[in-house]
């Protein structure tokens, strides 16, 4: 429903009417604490961060302002996350992107960068092992390798969550 409510390439009045009806259902669900409470809180934190870093030079070191499109993409990422996946911490990046971090410990973490396009750069550290890559996020479904990477770090290798 969430994906449907975001619309598509159809242009007829009827397609828009159906999308509007779906949007109302999604908005209603997102007002529910039980259904969306944790994600709503995470998105609220994300927006607060974006607000704090909405000006150039927010770090006193000539960092770019957080790009509103990056905020939009990061919100979409959070909405698309399976409920069983732990929510990330957010951090601003000097180029206007947003870092989403899953930190188990200093030596076990997964981090990905959400910018203004559909490419997600990610990196992970697991003790002495580390790696990085780029995955495509279509705005609807999280890339399988990102889900597996987060599970690997946060569940100590017991990756049981499949991509949606």
């Amino acid at each position: 429903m969430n994906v449907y409510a975001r619309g598509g390439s159809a242009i007829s009045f009827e397609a828009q009417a159906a999308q509007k009806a779906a949007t109302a259902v999604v908005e209603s669900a997102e007002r529910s604490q039980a259904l969306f409470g944790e994600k709503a809180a995470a998105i609220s934190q994300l927006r607060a961060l974006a607000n704090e870093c909405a000006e150039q030079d927010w770090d006193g070191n000539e960092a770019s302002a957080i790009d509103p499109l990056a905020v939009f993409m990061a919100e979409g990422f959070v909405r698309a996350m399976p409920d069983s996946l732990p929510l990330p911490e957010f951090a601003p990046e000097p180029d206007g992107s947003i870092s989403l971090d899953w930190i188990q410990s200093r030596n076990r973490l997964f981090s990905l960068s959400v910018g203004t396009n559909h490419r997600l750069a990610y990196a992970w550290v697991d003790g002495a092992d580390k790696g990085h890559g780029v995955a495509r996020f279509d705005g609807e479904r999280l890339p399988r390798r990102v889900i597996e990477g987060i599970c690997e770090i946060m569940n100590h290798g017991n990756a049981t969550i499949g991509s949606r």
Partner: protein
Amino acid sequence: MSASELRLPNAPIVEAVLDIGCDMPPAFDLAALERPSRDRFRDQYPKLRMQFIHETKIETHPDATPQMSVRHGIQAFQFLHADEKQLVQLRTQGFSFNRLAPYTSLDDYLPEIERTWRLFVGLAKPVQIRVVQLRYVNRILLPTVAGRVQLTDYLKIGPRLPDEERLAFVGFLNQHAAVETDTGNQANIVLTTQPQENDKLPIIFDNCVASAGTAEPEDWPWILARILSLRALKNRIFGNTLTERCLNLFQ
């Protein structure tokens, strides 16, 4: 129900859309394609509409006038026939072919879809295909009696009220998402109402099917095979959603 059985003289299709979602080159700039794409599509699609992402930012500071900034980005070029009943879209994430009513048959549009897809590939140079999606938006006018309609007379699937005697539908939204086990094709079926018009209750039946998988953009036979597979699925969904009485409305 086969495709041939579904040839309805008064089919309720208000829009049919074929989307081909692609991975675009990392440095892809849609805006740079405006002029060359105009030149390529002008003969059949003389009208151009641009679809924008529009963003407005208002900043307020104590003791200062609020500052407003606006940012635009192009999301799609829409090239339309002179009568605006058919269009081709160059999107940041791929290609779309839209046909509005009157609609005849997918067979009639496939040659044009192939032609315009090849133009898109030449212009945008997508890296690979990600998904093929076929979507049919139908609008069905159900007859009412004394302002009420028995939905089960017309819909095989759909909502039911918990108290049929003392409750009357004012509206509903029904969505089913499913996977075809044989092919992996995905279906998203939406049924919803519009406000009643005289003695008719308009129902929107959005029948959307998609096939995920990667292929080379030049591989039209692969795309065509996916389209035909999706067509069979969407026809089966159509036929199995509506009752004979409903189908008779389109004869």
